[in-house]
């Protein structure tokens, strides 16, 4: 049987290619399932700038209205804005229409619960059961509600950040900041937030047309234009957002990407300086974060990968800051969600209050070397790969909560299957580049021997 690789229905939501698998019927059904799951309350929806966004939005609205939900439509906005508004409006849930870092032909639905968090495993499984079962709630025309547009959501988001952190301190030198929003949802809010914080703004890729000007992930190889803008305009820092504005990467004043792992590290440094408390990160995040937590005498806890898992652990530990190494910063005092806008505000406050440059701040941090790789792998092979890795590296301590993480004396590596694509992800971190490469080659070699396709 031919596999259909362009559709992925999982606990992370539903994700597919427009014009192939992601049909309006599928989207309507998922929205109906979600409306059935939440019951007839208010649902907040928002989307990134993808060209298919309008089609997906209309399908979602139809499905939600048919189950009796009231829809608050934020239209184009960052995912964290949807999450913030779910809490502000005391909504029953939210749907974010975005395929985050996937290429332009993809789109997806991500489901948010009444706390503004992505559905936890058990909740997501319940939603999938309802979807597959198909007996969706139906209301008569008379019970149907209307769609309420909400134009002020982005202002509310900016205000929430300024209310907690304030503008940058007066008297400090006015910072010059470059921002690259990837023509995504951040385009409409990133530059405005920077303005509200009181910095001078140089913006690139802020046309919200859904035409990707670069690779969507804010990883170093995609940030050439931003680096050039930082150098050309003599900026103090450059910020890169992804399509849905949850992840953030930083470029130093020298026009060099510092690596997306360090966004959370710098944000944590600022937050712990204001307020001590537990830190939570997923188990693929750099060990440099542990060093920062320890320097403030704060405990650090690791969670499974994925925003829902991190926020769940943060709630349990009462964390003051947390997030993921891919550039996702979660600062619960503003928004219990990965939020690139919050990330920018925290890093700029750190710079303003320490008077340090990005490269100066980086110089004080430990810099272990991290490598990330993907290997194509049939979904049904992933489990046997993980079993093999677990058996082969039995002699070292392991974390088996999410894939296999092996802690060796001078580095660690993690092997796990993706929730969103038919691939295996490999992450290695070691004290030196040489050691990291040695580990990754060995692990990759063993996996390849199994024959993945």
């Amino acid at each position, binding site marked *: 049987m031919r596999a259909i690789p362009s559709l992925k229905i999982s606990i992370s939501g539903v994700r597919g290619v427009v*014009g192939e698998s992601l049909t*309006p019927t599928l989207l309507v059904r998922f929205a109906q399932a979600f409306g059935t799951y939440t019951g007839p309350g208010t649902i907040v929806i928002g989307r990134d700038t993808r060209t298919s966004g309008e089609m997906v939005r209309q399908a979602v609205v139809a499905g939600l209205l048919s189950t009796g939900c009231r829809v608050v439509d934020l239209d184009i906005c960052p995912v964290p804005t949807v999450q913030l508004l779910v809490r502000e409006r005391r909504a029953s849930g939210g749907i974010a229409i975005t395929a985050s870092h996937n290429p332009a032909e993809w789109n997806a639905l991500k489901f948010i619960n009444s706390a503004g968090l992505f559905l936890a495993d058990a909740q997501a499984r319940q939603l999938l059961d309802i979807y597959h079962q198909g007996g969706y709630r139906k209301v008569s025309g008379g*019970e*149907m509600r209307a769609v309420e547009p909400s134009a002020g959501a982005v202002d509310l988001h900016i205000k929430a950040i300024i209310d907690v952190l304030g503008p940058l301190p007066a008297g400090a030198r006015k910072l010059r900041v470059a921002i690259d929003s990837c023509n995504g949802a951040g385009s409409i809010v990133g530059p405005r937030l920077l303005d509200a914080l009181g910095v001078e703004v140089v913006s690139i890729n802020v046309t919200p047309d859904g035409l990707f000007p670069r690779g969507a992930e804010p990883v170093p190889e995609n940030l050439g234009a931003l680096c050039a803008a930082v150098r050309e305009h003599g900026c103090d820092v450059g910020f890169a957002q992804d399509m849905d504005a949850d992840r953030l990467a930083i470029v130093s004043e020298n026009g060099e990407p510092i690596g997306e792992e360090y966004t959370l590290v710098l944000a944590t440094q600022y937050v712990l300086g204001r307020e001590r408390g537990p830190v939570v990160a997923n188990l693929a995040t750099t060990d440099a974060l542990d060093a920062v937590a320890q320097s403030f005498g704060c405990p650090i806890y690791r969670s499974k990968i994925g925003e829902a898992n991190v926020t769940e652990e943060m709630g349990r530990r009462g964390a003051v800051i947390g997030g993921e190494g891919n550039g996702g910063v979660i600062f619960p005092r503003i928004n219990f969600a990965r939020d690139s806008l919050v990330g920018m505000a925290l890093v700029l406050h750190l710079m303003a209050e320490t008077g340090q440059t990005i490269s100066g701040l980086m110089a004080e941090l430990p810099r272990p070397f991290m490598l990330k790789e993907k290997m194509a792998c049939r979904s049904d092979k992933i489990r046997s790969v993980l079993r093999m890795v677990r058996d082969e590296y039995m002699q070292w301590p392991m974390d088996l909560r999410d894939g296999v993480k092996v802690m060796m004396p001078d580095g660690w590596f993690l092997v796990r299957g993706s929730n969103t694509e038919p691939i295996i992800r490999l992450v290695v971190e070691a004290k030196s580049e040489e050691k990291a490469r040695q580990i990754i080659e060995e692990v990759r070699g063993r996996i390849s021997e199994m024959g993945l396709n």
Partner: protein
Amino acid sequence: MSPDRAWKFANGASELSLEFFHKKAILNSLKIGISGVRGVVGETFTPELAVAFAQAFGSYLDSGRILVCCDTRSSGPMVFAAVVAGLLATGCEVVDLGVCPTPSLQIAVRQLMAEGGISITAGHNPEPWNALKFVRSDGLYLNAMQADELLDIFHQAEFAKARWNGIHSKVERRDAVAPHLEVLANAFDVEAIRQRRLTVAVDCCNSSCSLLSPRWLAALGCNVLAINDDPTAPFPHAPEPGTETMAQLRAVVGAGHADIGFAHDADGERLGIVTESGEILSEEATLAIASEIQLSRETGPVVTNISTSMAIDRIAARHGATVIRTPVGQAFVSEAMIEARGVVGGEGSGGVIVPRVQWTHDSAAAIGLILEHLARTEEPVSALAARLPRFTMLKHNIAVEPDRIHSLLQRLHEELKQEKIDYDETDGIKVSWQDGWVHARISNTESIIRIIVEAETAVRAHELLDWARDRVKR
């Protein structure tokens, strides 16, 4: 679904048993056919169904520009979103006309050179229903053959799919009411009507005509007594001009000393009339009045369906005009009008086609035609109504199980042939006598056989109904 809702279509005595209602409730809440797709929201008319039909229509028209409007039913926004999603997914450019009458959309389709349009309205059906009506690039409804083609695509379910770089990322919003008003103003002698300063009562049923009709009457210089003209409020009564639904309008005509009263359905096709003396005219009278007016100015063919009153034939004969009869359904009447260059046309349900405006039912055009006549002749509408031939019409429905209904009609055909009784088989079976006629046909919207009889006297009409009923139930 409640029995009275299921029984909405029936106007006459009912022979449905109670069990049959329960059995039929499910069968009846969805109807996919030549007149589009129609159903009860919350039962069978689901968002998936609306999406799939929009995809089928987008595929049928090979993408292109499609206009979408809806009436004021509370399920409108849900169906609208589903239709837009389906159209966008097939690569169509969607233009959103918001809430507006179907005839406004039909004019806009031609003006904006669109490939077609979808009007989201269940017309005269009650609030729990909704429907999609499909309009082609010339502003007319799909004809029977085209509707069949659309249904084939729907059933086959292999729709066109736009890729990310071909999908339209925005929906443009346009107003269709102002352009419609402009077309109307150019079609009638507005100055003559303005000078008469007529007082006109109008019941917009809180639907899309609220946005058109009071403005049109104001443009005609009328003193407008509008009721139920709030498009955000629910329907105050069934959205169908009829004796029961027009009682409030009659009261307003009386209290306001209006020269005439008009009642709209939900989407601007059917029109009901109250005279200045307070008589509620039957919906059959609307086309009769329009024909009398138009034929007194020019002679030419009148086009209507075979179930419409023989008053039309008598009026046409008076003016030396011919009548062309078509099967029941607006698409048939429109196409025959164009082919025969008809001067006026429509259906007995209160829909009037005024070719000066467009070749499809347009209640605002009918209002223009009637007011122009009142202004020119200074004749009261009651005098006009008094000149109409009056007959007795009886409508009767016989519920038949869906699996038996076609063979039953077939049996009637055979019996009539054996008995050498002449009949017309344009649509069902129509037998005519000097003083009356009987028409039996299968409903487009329910599992029933509709019998309509008309005769010069009430006694004769009942005689003909008994004759027909005996034959069907034999």
